[in-house]
């Protein structure tokens, strides 16, 4: 029993190391393709368009309700002190620096990242990747790099959109639920929230996009075992992306001003 | 036994079955053939009430199946055993539990020993003694088919439906499976419906043929009359010609 337990722990540690190593190798190969930048521009454009169009509705919905949730939390806190002038600041600060990039990153991972894993995984099990290799087309250059670049750019842009929508949502719900007038929300927001808060969140968003891209591509191109394998890879990819987002958030919070 | 009258079915806004009228006498053996995606499997599942037709009547053993709500359809389904195209073995159950599952559901009070004995007898009949404790994922394609057949036949249902009993199997295993099906049929005198793309092997086994193309019946009659069928689709398909409407 005890031996069994240690074997299981050892196996999962080894497995974790293998996945991390695989992701780092992929990172290395992607960087090589970017120095100097040589990759497929058409594929990048296609991916940008596809990922953007696919995610806009979900990002807008998420951001709108995130704004609402944050304004309610701020309201619960300030009601006690009667300090409604703090609501705009509290909601804006939380949304821009932490909760916005984090929740949008998680939703992006669920929408675009998992889709990407499923797509690449299906290409692997139907031997399309081997087909590309047979035509001496480098799959990293042709498939991976465009996706990585698209995800970084798209999550960055979508977070800008999400930030705006979340603040609008927070202001609206603040008026309806917490008796904070739009004017006082705006005063509190514009006086206390700085450009640094926004850039802090946006840099995080770009890094999250990079992490989602790397994990989803890695689990996609290493799919084994046919149809069931694709499902398992998608599952692993979203979990790894969530872990990566939270851990990098932890590090970035210190590193960024 | 089963009477279809003008069945029409749509799946995700796409017509799959169109005006299927078909009468199956008790004790007859039917084969359903046709090009891929012609609605063969959907027709078989509709007969069990797994799909509800949009139009038309379906009477199974005197019961209007589509008119029943889902929980009551089990009364009709108990008269049917089905081998699914993908075998549909429950991957959370072992082989023996898989085979015994329908029997245990149908007779909740049956003692455990009798269930096991019946399932073992069934596994012996399909030549899989000794695999009782294996998981479905440990079996080869042919073995999975045979477990599926064992599970479909364990309740001695009067109607048996086999969806692609030999797809992906080698010729020797194919012959063995058809021998097995013939033996089962002679023993229980059941009504059998078999779907297959392997027409020569299927034609040895059945005495009636239904030919489906794009959800419509192109031929419905005795097996011997298939050669003489004038329909250009049937003519081309049965002879495997490259020239023609397909």
């Amino acid at each position, binding site marked *: 029993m005890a031996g069994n337990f240690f074997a299981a722990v050892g196996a999962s540690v080894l497995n974790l190391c293998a996945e991390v190593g695989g992701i780092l190798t992929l990172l290395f190969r992607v960087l090589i393709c970017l120095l100097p930048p040589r990759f497929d521009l058409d594929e990048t454009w296609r991916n940008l368009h596809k990922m953007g169009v696919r995610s806009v509705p979900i990002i807008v919905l998420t951001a709108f309700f995130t704004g*609402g949730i944050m304004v309610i939390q701020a309201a619960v806190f300030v009601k006690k002190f009667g300090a409604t002038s703090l609501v705009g600041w509290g909601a804006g600060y939380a949304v821009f620096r932490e909760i916005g990039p984090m929740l949008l990153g998680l939703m992006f991972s669920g929408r675009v990242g998992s889709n990407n894993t499923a797509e690449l995984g299906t290409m692997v099990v139907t031997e399309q990747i081997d087909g590309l290799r047979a035509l001496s087309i480098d799959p990293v250059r042709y498939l991976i790099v465009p996706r990585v670049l698209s995800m970084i750019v798209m999550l960055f842009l979508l977070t800008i959109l999400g930030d705006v929508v979340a603040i609008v949502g927070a202001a609206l719900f603040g008026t309806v639920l917490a008796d904070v007038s739009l004017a006082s929300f705006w005063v509190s927001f514009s006086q206390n929230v700085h450009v640094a808060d926004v850039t802090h969140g946006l840099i995080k968003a770009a890094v999250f996009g990079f992490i989602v891209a790397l994990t989803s591509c890695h689990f996609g191109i290493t799919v084994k075992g046919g*149809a069931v394998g694709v499902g398992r890879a998608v599952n692993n990819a979203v979990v790894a992306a969530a872990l990566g987002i939270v851990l990098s958030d932890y590090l970035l919070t210190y590193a960024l001003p | 036994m089963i009477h279809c009258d003008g069945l029409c079915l749509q799946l995700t806004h796409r017509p799959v079955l169109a005006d299927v009228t078909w009468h199956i006498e008790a004790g007859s053996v039917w084969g359903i053939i046709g090009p891929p995606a012609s609605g063969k499997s959907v027709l078989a599942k509709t007969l069990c009430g797994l799909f509800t037709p949009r139009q038309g009547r379906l009477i199974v053993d005197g019961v209007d199946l589509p008119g029943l709500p889902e929980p009551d359809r089990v009364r009709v389904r108990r008269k049917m055993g089905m081998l699914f195209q993908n075998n549909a073995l429950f991957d959370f159950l072992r082989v023996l539990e898989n085979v015994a599952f329908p029997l245990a559901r149908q007779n909740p009070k049956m003692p455990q020993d009798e269930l096991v004995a019946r399932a073992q007898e069934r596994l012996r009949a399909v030549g899989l003694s000794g695999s009782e404790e294996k998981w479905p994922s440990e079996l080869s394609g042919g073995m999975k088919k045979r477990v599926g057949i064992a599970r479909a036949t364990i309740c001695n249902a009067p109607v048996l439906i086999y969806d692609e009993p030999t797809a992906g199997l080698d010729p020797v295993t194919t012959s063995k499976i058809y021998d097995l099906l013939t033996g089962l049929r002679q023993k229980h005198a059941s009504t059998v419906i078999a779907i297959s793309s392997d027409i020569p092997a299927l034609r040895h086994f059945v005495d009636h043929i239904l030919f489906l193309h794009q959800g419509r019946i192109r031929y419905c009659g005795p097996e011997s009359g298939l050669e003489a069928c004038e329909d250009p689709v049937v003519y081309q398909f049965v002879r495997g010609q490259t020239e023609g409407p397909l």
Partner: protein
Amino acid sequence: MISNFFASVGAFVLGMVEAFFQALSIAGRTFRGVFHPKERARGEVLHQMYQIGNRSLLFVTVTLGALGMVLVFQVCLQINKITGDQSQVGPEFIRGMVHAFVPILTAMMLATRVGAGIAAEIGSMTVTEQVDALRMTGVDPVDYLIVPRFLASMIMTLVLGIYATVIVVLAGALMAHTAFDVNYNVFFVFEKITWGDLGVGLTKLVVHGGAIPIVSGYCGLSTTGGSEGVGTATTRAVINSSLTVIILDFVISAIGLMTVQSGT
């Protein structure tokens, strides 16, 4: 280009509405299954609880621990800039965790981990016709597959949420102490938590925990089209259950603000 965009938004909305009503019908059948158990499934509930706990314990520990540290860091940083009075950080942080952050963040993590797992499992059973085979023998797939996962997920989300609160508060205290010299005695003050906060937090956990398997189970059962279908179902499960969690969280927060938390 523009009309294309509107077409895709329109298709999205229509798809959401249709999915919403189908998921609602599955929810109804699940509730009926809970109160009129046809399947003897106590062992199955325990098995699913073990699966959920086993899958998520480490994941929740790592993610929520890191989040606890980050949130305390951000709050202290801001307070340092304005008042410099760190004495209220601990009590207000703990309170905010209990009624707001832990429920939504735990549920988001579980939607990713557990929701994807449920959809992949039930989805592959759907495409290999195992669900049809169950129906052939008169088993209702909702009773047999979703009800045990529903009960297990509700219980385990509650348990993991309480566990996550402990982790978050410990991690937060550690961060406040090491980076901002907040004394542990000042940090661990639980008097600020009202019964209203506790009620809102626990309600959220139970509701989110119940919603995840229903939404993902619906995604699994409506899988079509072979191996790619399972991947799509998993994707849909993650996104739909996350979105459901966010919207439910908003609704419960709003109700809580207007009722039990209004006086505080």
